């Protein structure tokens, strides 16, 4: 891609810094954290110090004050060497922090965003439930108003940072008679469940955040990929949430999280693109040094054509991602372009990682090379933040919006 189409000099500086950080600090530990499935606090601290956990928020709120193109560059570059690190940025920023920035009151923003943007504590977003996956309208968690607070009951599944996080945006039904218009969002706080490990690095907890009794995390998921990212259940048992923690107007929860998910999908598209490009770079490097029948295997047409296809599709993916990022930055509706970017790039990540393993032959199937991890990390991109099926549904609805009554 001609860099100047989407990037200015500042974007290239951000890219260079994150690329160096990813190569020097993330790549050497990626296989280790994948194997032990623990949260990489040491790197999280460094990422916070570099401003990577609050890229698009204003400096006033403790962010780096950059645009959304820079933000996508950060996710893309981290995911090239490790998807879990990329996801941490995406889930923390778009899912955990952006609803408070966009829908919060001034007081809520000042209270929570600086803690999140600096990376002092991790944030998360509780939407998915056991019976409400693709159909988020099937939310069963309830919030009942009692005087100056709401009482929350229910649970959420597959919540990124469920254990390591302290600040969460959670959806719950406030008016069952209103369907999706009866869903509201709340800001909830709990204590980090990985406190000892986090505090070795001086982050992950803030004493001013009150753990809400009855709000806890459940079992940690043992996953195929994204293993250095913490995924857990969130459990609410008669959690008393002060009314001031209602995020946005009552009944606006569904509409607000649809907007949050649009931005989230561009992030997952950037992450998927990173996985695809990382796998491609590994395959290209391997194919140019691996010799069989007296020549580098890249010079066999059977391999060269596969590399050509991967490179072409990655190029297409870059245009989809950075075009959507720019639209998002300009405040335009990205419902269709975000879904297209996410659909294309997540399926590309799967294709590219499988090809990369094939090009590596038997070595690609071992943990001596990173491509098997990349393949495991790619699969969830076709599922999380809206399955490929849901993306197609969103795109087709947008296509038919003005045609079919």
């Amino acid at each position, binding site marked *: 891609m001609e860099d100047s189409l989407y990037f200015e*000099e*500042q974007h290239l*500086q*951000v890219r*260079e*810094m994150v690329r*160096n*950080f990813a190569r020097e600090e993330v790549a050497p530990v990626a296989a280790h954290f994948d194997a032990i499935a623990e949260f990489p606090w040491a790197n999280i601290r460094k990422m916070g*110090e*570099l*401003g*990577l956990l609050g*890229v698009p928020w204003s*400096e006033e709120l403790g962010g*780096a*004050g*950059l645009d959304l193109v*820079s933000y996508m560059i950060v996710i893309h570059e981290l995911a090239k060497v490790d998807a879990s690190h990329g996801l941490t940025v995406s889930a923390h920023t778009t899912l955990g922090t952006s609803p408070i920035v966009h829908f919060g009151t001034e007081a809520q923003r000042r209270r929570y965003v600086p803690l999140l943007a600096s990376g002092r504590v991790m944030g998360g977003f509780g939407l998915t439930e056991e019976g409400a996956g693709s159909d988020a309208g099937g939310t069963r968690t309830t919030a009942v108003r009692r005087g100056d607070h709401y009482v929350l009951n229910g649970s959420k599944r597959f919540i990124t940072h469920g254990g390591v996080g302290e600040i969460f945006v959670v959806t719950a039904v406030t008016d069952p008679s209103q369907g999706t218009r009866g869903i509201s969002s709340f800001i909830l706080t709990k204590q980090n469940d990985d406190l000892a490990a986090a505090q070795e690095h001086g982050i992950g907890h803030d004493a001013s955040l009150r753990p809400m009794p009855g709000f806890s995390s459940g079992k940690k998921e043992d996953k195929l990929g994204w293993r250095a990212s913490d995924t857990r259940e969130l459990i609410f048992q008669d959690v008393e949430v002060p009314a001031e923690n209602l995020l946005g107007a009552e009944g606006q929860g569904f509409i607000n999280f649809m907007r949050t998910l649009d931005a989230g999908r561009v992030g997952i598209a950037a992450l998927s693109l990173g996985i695809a490009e990382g796998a491609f770079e590994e395959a290209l490097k391997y194919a140019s040094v691996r010799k069989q029948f007296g020549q580098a295997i890249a010079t066999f047409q059977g391999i060269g054509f596969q590399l050509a296809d991967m490179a072409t599709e990655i190029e297409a993916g870059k245009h989809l991602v950075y075009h959507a990022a720019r639209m998002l930055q300009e405040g335009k509706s990205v419902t269709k372009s975000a879904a297209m970017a996410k659909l294309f790039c997540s399926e590309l990540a799967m294709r590219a990682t499988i090809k990369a393993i094939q090009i590596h032959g038997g070595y690609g199937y071992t943990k001596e090379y990173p491509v098997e991890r990349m393949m495991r990390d790619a699969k969830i991109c076709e599922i999380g933040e809206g399955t490929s099926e849901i993306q197609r549904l969103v795109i087709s609805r947008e296509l038919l919006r003005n045609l079919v009554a």
Partner: protein
Amino acid sequence: MGGTIFLVNFFTMGAAPVKIAVCIKRVPEMDGAFKIAASGTAVDETGLKWDISDFDGYAVEAALQMTEKLGAGEVHVISLGPDVVQETLRKALSMGCARATHLKCDVVPFDPFAIASALAAELQGGGYDLVMFGKMSIDSANGAVGLMVADLLGMPMVHGCSKLDIAAGAGTARREIEGGGELVRFSLPAVVSIDEGIARPRYPSLKGIMAAKKKPMDVKPAQLGPVRLTVQKMDLPAARAAGRILGEGAAVVPELVRLLQQEAKVI
């Protein structure tokens, strides 16, 4: 508390803010494969990636750490070359340097004296307490510019510092020498060059990258000295012949020894 405030004031009053200049060079990253250009006297620059020369990066980091430790002072960064060196200067600004000077010339001459003359002309009268260099550039590896600048400015020079500290008009440095180390003391102003091991360069933070856009970048023509030294020819090391496997186990040792003695002639 009053005592603490008094002490802090006492020290900052005693030490004027230190002013450090770091001279940096833009060089190709060394992990790529190099080709010689058609001229035969330079590297083919197509497709190369560029960055601050490694030792110069250590010097920038060491300078920033010194001003941070002293709590006062600023670091200026200077580079010589075509317009693209501004990218490299901007990186140093994003790491925390306060201002940059671009000494503009179309081609960086190979002759270290020509470069040193231009740098000395810029540094002269700049009021710097310390002028820092990397101990050599990783591309041309002359290691001469810093020494020549010190001579032109009439300042003491410490070459290859692995530790460095300055306070109240004097500095101390450690140099790694064959089989040991030595600690030297020198008066300021001075010129020093930095060895590896002193400090690993920081990543520019996103805030640093944003702030760098607003920092001053002065552009001046480079007052190069006469060029009396040029490269006549470059060549690449000969490709290494493939190794040979003689076999396994003790049985092949006599043959190995014979080949090492008679064919490779290394023992």
